[in-house]
């Protein structure tokens, strides 16, 4: 039972910046983005052009939704691929540099 628990934790818990850590963070970011997308937060990014949301300039919830969606979208397009590409590069570099050293 305890081993099962440990296995489950290990799925998400990896040494900082290890290849597994890079991939797991990419997966978390992409899942987060997909959830926000499915929740329809895309509609709320009009703040980028200075246009208030449908609820008006004081609809702070919609503005926050828009900001979070925009950040997760750019993370999905910019950060996620970098993390995924970095993982195998990191394995290769480690094998080459550290074993050599």
């Amino acid at each position, binding site marked *: 039972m305890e081993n099962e628990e440990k296995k489950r934790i290990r799925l998400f818990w990896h040494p900082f910046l290890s290849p597994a850590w890079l991939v797991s963070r990419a997966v978390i970011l992409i899942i987060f983005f997909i959830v926000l997308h499915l929740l329809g937060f*895309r509609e709320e990014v*009009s703040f980028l*052009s200075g246009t208030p949301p449908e609820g008006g300039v004081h609809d702070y919830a919609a503005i926050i939704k828009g900001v979070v969606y925009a950040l997760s979208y750019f993370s999905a*397009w910019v950060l996620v691929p970098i993390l995924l*590409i*970095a993982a195998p590069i*990191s394995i290769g570099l480690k094998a080459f540099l*550290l074993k050599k*050293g």
Partner: protein
Amino acid sequence: MSDKDRSFEEKMKLRFKEIGVALLALILAACLWLPSVHFFFKASDVVSKSGPISKRAKELAQRHLKIWQDPKLRQKELQRMRGRNAEWDFMGRTFLVLALSNMALRSPDTQAGHLEIIDAIIDDTLKVEDEMGMHHFLLGYSQSSSWIQQPERSIFVDGEIAIMLGARRLLAEKLSYKDEFQSRVRLMKKRMEEAPVYCNESYPNECWMFCNSAAAVALKMSDVLDGSKYTEFLNAWLNKIRQELVDKKTGLLPSSFSYRGRIMDGPEGSSIWFTAHCLQLLDREFAKDQYERAKAELAVSICGFSYAKEWPESFRGPMDVDSGPIIPVLEVSAGSSGMAFIAAGAFEDQEFLSSLLGTLDFAGFPLKTEGALKYCASNQVGDAVLLYSLVQGPLWEKILRKGN
């Protein structure tokens, strides 16, 4: 040092080395990925002054037609824009009328349907202007001080209403609009002639090049439609603005100046791109020169994505309702980038337009529902400007053909 301590120290060393390797891997990955992102947003739209309407333009138009066919949706969209800037409500109408006119000229079988929407927009605009006055379409400070030229009139409102009427009449004559167009154009010309730099106020003691260029287009339309002889005045206007208003550092026309011609805001992206497009009807060489200079000063390309800054290096102005929010460091301006689409299309700069469209697809958050496209980061006026930039050409060609 005990064995236990030594092994801890070694472990730490190894860990730091691993982190260093990972950081190096992240840098290499970024160098590989960042210049490649734009390949996923390659726009296939082709700039042409005639020919069929692109799929993107059709889908964008679909959304606008829905807005003007559904009073509730229209109310909702206009209210959102008016909450921030009443001018957007007005300009959204102008650019949509211009876009639909071009679409009807490109695809004559759509003319009847588009004329219906164009008339609905014009009738509503004239009604609102009549009932609420010109201030309804202006920012609040239009009533905060007195206008130099009396009686007070805004060339922003007069010029764009005249353009809407002129575009409609160039598409198909409508007698009930003829008088409205002629009287507005006559009045604008008279007041421009009286002004020290042949430019009228858009706001109290504030003349905008954008608005006066639009008024000049309306005067040119009048020559074509009604045989008025404004060419001489338009040439004098061109000479005046070239001699007295052009910014010495950049060679660009400024965005705003006082009634007597004192420069207020220097060259500004949200103004100069459209101004250059208007100048195409009056002096092609000058227009091209303004476009090239604006591109050199304001266009930015990073990793295959293009956008436009609001201000050139030599003039740092504020972030305002015209520029839209400016993203720090990159200096991306929504207002300037939006207007840059028009100029890139008008000057058939395929490379710049494709790159701008790529940026729009990446950072504009397109959303398609039931065949209608909108950009969530934008609004109705932004999408109308974009639509116009994708279909423009035939109307200006018609004016040039008939006017020469």
